[in-house]
C-alpha cells in the first residue's frame, strides 16, 4: 500500500488546496504483469534508443486512474473496484494509492 498526499492536482473543479472539501483523491496504477510481453512499451523503448537515450533498459506502459470519492475512502470497496474493473487480474497488476490524512 502506497500513500500520497492530496492537493497535488490543483485547478479545475478543485479548491485552492487541490481537492474539494470532503472529497478524497485515490490513485490506481495498472501495469501488465512481468510475464506478459508489452509491445507498446517495447516500441517506446525503441524510440528512446533512436533519440539517443541508450541508457534506458526497459519500458513498461500502464494506466493511471485518478478517482475522487466522497468522504473517507472505503479501502475494501476501492480495492474491489481496482481489482475487478480497472485491472484484469489475468494479465495486469494493480496498485492502490490512498491519500494521507
Amino acid at each position, binding site marked *: 500500500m502506497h500513500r500520497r498526499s492530496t492537493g497535488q492536482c490543483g485547478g479545475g473543479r478543485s479548491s485552492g488546496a487541490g481537492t474539494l472539501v470532503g472529497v478524497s483523491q485515490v490513485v490506481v496504477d495498472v501495469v501488465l504483469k512481468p*510475464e*506478459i510481453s508489452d*509491445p*507498446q512499451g517495447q*516500441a517506446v523503448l525503441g524510440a528512446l534508443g533512436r533519440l539517443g537515450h541508450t541508457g534506458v533498459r526497459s519500458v513498461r506502459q500502464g494506466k493511471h486512474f485518478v478517482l475522487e470519492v466522497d468522504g473517507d475512502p472505503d479501502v475494501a470497496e476501492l480495492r474491489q473496484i481496482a481489482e475487478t*474493473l480497472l485491472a*484484469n487480474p*489475468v*494479465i495486469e497488476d494493480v496498485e492502490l494509492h490512498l491519500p494521507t490524512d
Partner: protein
Amino acid sequence: MRIGVITFPGSLDDVDAARAVRLAGGEPVALWHADDDLSGVDAVVLPGGFSYGDYLRAGAIAARAPLMRSVVDRAHAGLPVLGICNGFQVLCEAGLLPGALTRNSHLHFRNRDQGLTVERADTAWTTSFTQGQQIVVPVKNGEGRYVAADADLDRLEGEGRVVVRYVSTTPGSGVGGNPNGSSRDIAGVTSADGRVVGLMPHPEHAVEALTGPSEDGLGFFTSVLTAVVAA
C-alpha cells in the same frame, strides 16, 4: 431455433452475425445490451466490433453490461454462447472463458483471410466440422493476441480446451501463420462444458461465396442448431 445477437454500443458485425444465423437456418433475434432479458433465445452470439470504443480494455465495459449478467447466468446452465473477436474479448472479461486478449505483438491491425485448424469438433458451435479440418475465414483485429499464464495454457491444452488454432505458415498460401502473436497459435477456446466458445477470427464473414473467402464459417452457425436440439 432462435439465436440472439447482442448489440453493444460500438458493435460492428451484429448484422453480419444475424445474417449468418439466418443463412444457417436459424431465426436471428436482436438483443440490446442494456436490457435484462434474453427474450427466451436458445443460444447467443456476441459479435465483433469495438464495444464502448475499447475504452479501459477491449470488452471490459461491455462485459459489465446489464444483459451480460443474464448471459453469464444462463451460460453456467448450459446456454450455448459464441463470442467472435470483440465478443471473445467480452467473454474473457466476463470470466466465461479463460485468458485474455492483448495488443498484437507487432502493434498493427491485421486484416486478412486466415487458415485455421479445428481441434475440437464436439463443442456446441463446431459439430459441423471434423477434428483436424482446415478452414479459411477472415481475421481482423488489433488486440487479438491470446495470452494466459504458462501453467494455465498447459492446463487448457491438457483439458482440450483449444477449439481452433492458427495454421502454421504455408509458403505461398497467403492464409497461414499466427496473425497477432497469440500464445501457442491459439485462435479460439471453449468452456469446460463445451457450450461457450470464443474466437478472434470471423466465421460470420465467410458464409457465402459472394462476400467471403469461403463458406467455412457457416459451420459454426449450423452446429449450434444441432446442439440446441440435443440439449
